[in-house]
């Protein structure tokens, strides 16, 4: 680990600034689409529920009909359109020097380092939406009670498999 942290990461809204400042690799931008679809699948039912509630109850009691529906769909649209790409740009990883480093989040940023020696086992997983975009996620298990699972999403399937092999080789060499 040779990175010297910048005194203050620069403009928080520049997409690559954060990862560049900390010497991390960004995850695959296609992951934004995965997040977007997942968010949509979560939020659209909620928005529909809000509309139904609005139509059944607010109109019934002669309240301001339409307000809740409009707000719900507006918030859902903003969240689905703008947030995923921003969230993706906050994910970063670095593999090498015998350790895996995974960083995520901005308001609450967590930067985790797991030495390969400490890895108990490794999963490479792929959900249906991820498969659509050819992405996988890598899950590293440690024996620590805190951080027993460290997940790194948004990796190209081949890259995830290659990373798994790298980590696996290290586990083997260290036990030999």
């Amino acid at each position: 680990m040779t990175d010297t942290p910048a005194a203050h990461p620069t403009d928080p809204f520049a997409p690559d600034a954060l990862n560049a400042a900390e010497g991390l690799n960004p995850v695959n931008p296609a992951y934004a689409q995965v997040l977007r679809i997942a968010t949509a699948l979560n939020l659209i039912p909620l928005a529909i529920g809000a509309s139904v509630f609005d139509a059944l109850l607010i109109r019934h009691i002669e309240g301001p009909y339409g307000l809740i529906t409009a707000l719900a769909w507006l918030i859902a649209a903003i969240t689905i359109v703008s947030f995923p790409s921003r969230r993706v740009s906050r994910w970063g990883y670095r593999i090498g020097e015998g350790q895996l480093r995974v960083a995520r989040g901005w308001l609450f940023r967590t930067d985790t380092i797991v030495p390969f020696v400490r890895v108990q086992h490794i999963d490479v997983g792929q959900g249906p939406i991820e498969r659509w975009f050819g992405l996988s996620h890598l899950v590293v298990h440690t024996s620590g009670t805190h951080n027993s699972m460290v997940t790194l999403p948004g990796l190209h399937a081949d890259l995830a498999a290659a990373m798994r092999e790298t980590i696996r080789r290290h586990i083997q060499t260290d036990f030999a």
Partner: protein
Amino acid sequence: MSDASATLPALADSEPRWQRLHPATLALAIVALGPKSFNLLPAVAALGFTGNWVYVVPAILAFLLISLLAAWFQWLRFRFVVGDDEVVIESGVFSRQHRTIPFDRIQDVSIEQGLVARALGIAKVGFETGAGGKENDADLNAIALDAAQALRTTIRAHRSGEAAAPAATDATQMAPAPEDRLLFAMSPRQLLVAGLFNFSLAALAVVGAGMQFFDGLLPFDFNIFNPVDWIDVADDYELGDWVYAHRGIAAAGGIVSLLLLGFASGIAMMFFANWDFRLTREPRALRRTRGLTTRTDVAVPVKRVQAAIIVTGWLRQRFGWHELRLQSLASDGEKERDHQVVPFARLGDIDPVLTEVAIMRPGAGQVWQHSHHIVALGGVIGAICATIGGLIAASLGQPLGWFGPVAGLLIAAGSLFGARFHRWADLGEQVAIRRGVWKPKTTLLPHASVQSVDLKSDFILRPLGLATLVFGVPGGSSLASHEIPAIPVATAHDLRTRILTARTRR
């Protein structure tokens, strides 16, 4: 498992050696019926209220019969075999379970005896495999005590025989301690002193719960746990006037009896839990036996110790008393996560135990670094919320609302004061973390136990140039992870690099 040809005949040989649990286990099942029969109470009550008194006795008998039959079938269907290098357990009446535990994977064997079990000469044997979750650990509940001890000796012998071959370090480690050596014991006098510091009003809660419980249950209109009823009785005999006239004395008497109750329950709890406490050093483990009614016999394998935690109290620290817990892969019984290996002792008595697990206590001259005062923020925000809420309530005419600002002030002062006691020090091979005023707690965490490190910062810490380090350590509670809150980012990066470059401990 590599030589299947060797293990297979062993299994075939072991086929006729299936063993059952000790028949006295059924007696344990009868004892266990006591608390279980509470489930029957509503049914019996329902029968009684509907006037079907005739059916009450048959219902109870049927319940007993069914429970005993269930216990009998479970006993019948539970069998185990101790092979040459594994334990096999088969259990279950309807859904059968077949479990194989290789000796290599058994971290330790614990032996526990309740009061009834001691009278019957049987003991519950627990296998700690280090697998997560309680349901993954196997129990033999219960077998004869000598069989339990023999089983443990077998498994220990297997483990030490296997370990002697590959590691030369083991040989050096075993050389100075060839036989078991007493590290720490508690005399009744020490227990008494410890009990005095263990002042607890938990017994009051039990009485209160009893009050709630018996209030609706007793057929007559007098609850011995309810002081109001006693006052009514006193009134009948015109005692009430006397008490009112001497209320100062009555209040003093109340406080004195409360204090007595607190001390008595503290001492009793200490005596029940830690009677005849002995901590011995065995070749590979620290072994602890203790308990008045329920005797437990637990061993903590030395190499499995992940961290040491020294806990004390504001008052007992003044008198030099401390408690030592060891965080290990296995958990201590069902409630405690960490193993309490020294319940109450001077630091001088704790040091030899720490030496055994190769952990060093920072000396008196240790320079501690402090966390930033921002760690008080959570408490201060809580205090502000309490104050605002209280003020709103008070402005709405609720006089109790004034508790809000008062409590807020106390909380804010407490957290601001407590923030000064978040300290840490890097001792080279391990990190020491201290926190707490009322219950100071020092965690000694060897670098080599750390599995992963989080460096966390958020929108409050980042502008201040601070970060929080969180360590992933095996064992312990998932709720209380080890962390160093709010230290300068550069320091945090340095410390993280240093910790992660430490080699594995074993």
